[in-house]
């Protein structure tokens, strides 16, 4: 059994400090995609607008998945949209994160049992890092989720695909 690549050199001052700097850079500039699905997207826009201003945390929307780090699944993921969500996720460069915003994205929401057309939770198709409950969540809740994501990025020893 081969040891994991990041464990090769053990913990030393140089690697850990550089790694800490990298994690700080990644956590401080999360660029999500301009990608909204349903009513939660309205709250996402509100969070980016003047009152709550996501730009304060270095979060600003990029139109192209190639240039974004995070994906905010804001709204009901229908089965038709699921393949597109998956595709957009795959188009993002590593390291990448996913924020699931609102009940529908978390677990299908009100459609979790009877909805014949709704994906029962976006974590069935892509790995989700942060779940924000709410229907829809307040803009503050989204900011809270982003702060939580920053904590995750800073805590994780080596982020995916360095």
């Amino acid at each position, binding site marked *: 059994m081969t040891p994991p690549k990041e464990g090769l050199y053990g913990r030393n001052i140089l690697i850990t400090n550089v790694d800490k700097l990298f994690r700080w850079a990644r956590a401080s500039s999360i660029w999500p995609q301009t990608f909204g699905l349903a009513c939660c997207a309205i709250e996402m826009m509100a969070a980016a607008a*003047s*009152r*709550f*201003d996501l730009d*304060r945390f270095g979060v600003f929307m990029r139109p192209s998945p190639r240039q974004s780090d995070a994906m905010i699944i804001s709204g009901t993921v229908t089965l038709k949209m699921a393949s597109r969500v998956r595709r957009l996720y795959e188009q993002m460069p590593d390291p990448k994160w996913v924020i699931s915003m609102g*009940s529908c994205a*978390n*677990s*299908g*929401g*009100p459609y*979790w*049992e*009877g*909805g*014949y057309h709704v994906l029962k*939770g976006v*974590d069935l198709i892509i790995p989700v*890092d*942060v*779940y*924000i*409950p*709410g*229907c829809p*969540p*307040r*803009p*503050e*809740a989204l*900011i*809270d*989720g982003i*702060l*939580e994501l920053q904590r*995750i990025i800073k805590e994780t020893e080596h982020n995916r695909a360095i």
Partner: protein
Amino acid sequence: MAEMRTALGMPITHQTKTSKNPIIQWILDVWEGFYTVLVGMGVTWRHFFRKPFTVQYPHEKLNIPKQARQRVHVDIDLCGGCLQCDKICPAGIIKIVTAKPVAGEDLGVRPNGKRRALHIAEFTIDHSKCLYCGLCETVCNDDAIYMIPDFQYTTRSLEQLVVNYSRYSPEERDRVVAAAAAEKAAKQASKPAVPQTKVSDPQPNIPSPSVDSDVFNEKCPGPDGEFK
């Protein structure tokens, strides 16, 4: 432009000049384009010195209105176990397991003065599916389930969003439920068989009195068209 402003009852601040000579008209157009850009820049300039509108969220917070529906909270001491919230929940995310106390067991009095008649063995709410409609709050007889203005409960896994509000641990729940079932079975065994048939005979013809709960518990067809 001018007509629109008059129709809206706004004062006309800038009137477009027109001329019949095309060259003069061209010069007027160019000037107007330039001038209106300056006006727009003036508006932006005023905004530069306006106090920002932003609420810096983690450091300062907005007051959330009282009637805001942000999170379901259960005051389990008040709950009487009537199952109304479970029956009305449109998403069907409340799971309540109640058990009758065994004979001689006294559960005491709830804070609102009513006697506690049932063990609330389990009271689970799946917050990840909640749609914050507030119906449970409306139907609750004891004001035990209500909305609180708390929205900071972002989690890293869905399991953390499934909250059991009951004070009973899983072992206690199993014990209480088993005890109640055992007592019920014992009671049924001790009762004479005649009254039971009396009740069960006319049942198929009489519609169920509890229509509400049936409507809300009705299942939708699944993806393959069958009823689950």
